[in-house]
């Protein structure tokens, strides 16, 4: 069953006009913001396919920027988000790309500030449902609907079991998990979607593990 809840049918509450081009776009922006964990100084937003062709009319641009400002799909500030971003001190650059992507509704978001930068690729697959497909050049699949832990680590034996052992100790169930790496033995990324809330303390425990270089917590 693709749809499980009455609220998949009667919902979401959202700013119009399109569940895929507006609500989905806002969700991708918001996941990028959550992954960055603060308001970026600069956002470069590259639009592909149908997003690139129709973004003005669908408000895809203001929806993504609204998401970056941490607005939900129903936040009435979405239509004025470009101005609000400027007031908040976030520079926004839009790029319309010609490259044909696998999914017609694709956006690449690059976020920067003095401390770090982040690259996220997201797709809007319909009815407001999204997937994050790339993070800092790592391929992944993240829905943003569940709490998740992202762990950047050295591609060595034992790291995965050490991380999952910590989750088991805290009685946290894993709903979905995947591991990807750029090159054998180099940098790798673990994406773990879980059913329970993840405390900051658990994150600290994971960060202390050998071969773990960075962790990101995604709260739903």
């Amino acid at each position, binding site marked *: 069953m693709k749809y*499980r809840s*009455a609220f*998949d049918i*009667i*919902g979401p*509450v959202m*700013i119009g006009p*399109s569940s895929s081009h507006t609500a989905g776009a806002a969700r991708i922006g918001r996941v990028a913001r959550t992954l960055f964990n603060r308001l970026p100084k600069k956002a470069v937003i590259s639009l592909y396919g149908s997003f690139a062709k129709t973004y*003005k009319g669908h408000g895809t641009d203001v929806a993504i920027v609204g998401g970056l400002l941490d607005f939900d799909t129903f936040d009435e500030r979405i239509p004025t988000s470009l101005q609000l971003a400027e007031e908040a001190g976030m520079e926004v650059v839009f790029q319309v790309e010609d490259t044909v992507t696998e999914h017609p509704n694709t956006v690449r978001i690059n976020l920067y500030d003095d401390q770090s930068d982040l690259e996220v690729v997201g797709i809007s697959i*319909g009815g407001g449902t999204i997937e994050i497909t790339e993070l800092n050049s790592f391929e992944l699949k993240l829905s943003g609907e569940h709490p998740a832990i992202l762990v950047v680590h050295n591609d060595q034996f034992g790291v995965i079991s050490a991380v999952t052992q910590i989750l088991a100790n805290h009685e946290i169930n894993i709903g979905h998990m995947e591991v990807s790496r750029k090159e054998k033995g180099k940098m790798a990324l673990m994406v773990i979607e879980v059913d329970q809330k993840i405390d900051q303390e658990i994150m600290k425990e994971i960060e202390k593990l050998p071969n773990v270089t960075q962790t990101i917590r995604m709260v739903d």
Partner: protein
Amino acid sequence: MLFRNVAELVELAESKQVKIAEIMIQQEIEVTGLSREEIIAKMDRNLTVMEQAVERGLNGVTSVSGLTGGDAVLLQKYIQSGKALSGNILLDAVSKAVATNEVNAAMGTICATPTAGSAGVVPGTLFAVKEVLNPTRMEMIEFLFTSAAFGFVVANNASISGAAGGCQAEVGSASGMAAASIVELAGGTPRQAAEAMAITLKNMLGLVCDPVAGLVEVPCVKRNAMGASNAMTAADMALAGITSRIPCDEVIHAMFLIGQSMPSALRETAEGGLAATPTGRRLEAEIFGKKN
């Protein structure tokens, strides 16, 4: 899952002697683990969003592109003139459906039912029949759960996405959902609700998704108008005792197969149908030439 298709849904409601809405609420409790109170409160909030959208649209809005807006107001004035031919409740439903989609096109707040592009039909018909049936708040919430139950079956057995199944999957589904809910609110049986859904959907089969310039405006707003009137008519037919010769689940399956054989140009790509007419193309050039 308590039910997977309309036949099971109707049987369950009949054997338990409860409304379809009640079956949907029970399933929601089972699937989400939330309490009945939490689930009803959540739907109550969605109902409030719908109410506010209708109200806003009836006061007049215009979309960002300028293609749509103001028709709900025109229709309300026409109803008030007393010259309307189709009946005031029917036209009230149409104008309230239009109102919701005009708000959607103007980047206002709406509740997707089942999608943003088809968000007008369910609230449009609900707030029109409300004027004559005087339901309680809880009965209005139940109206939405009944819609959810039928939409749930369509979404899982066919599609509610224009890109996948054309407009029949969006406005078609919404209209079928609304028809079933009207029947239940008016005191019809679960079986009559299913008949209304079948009759409505049969008359929406094959409807393509061909939005001008790819925007959720033309013809989407007026498709919601016709969806609402289709739902009202089918609900009255079912309440009169008329049945569908083709069972509801088979109509849903037919919709699924029609969607699969629909060319991509007619599934939300703005490449065919009304989008490809000379005027459609001219409007597209004007909007994007001006804005991009």
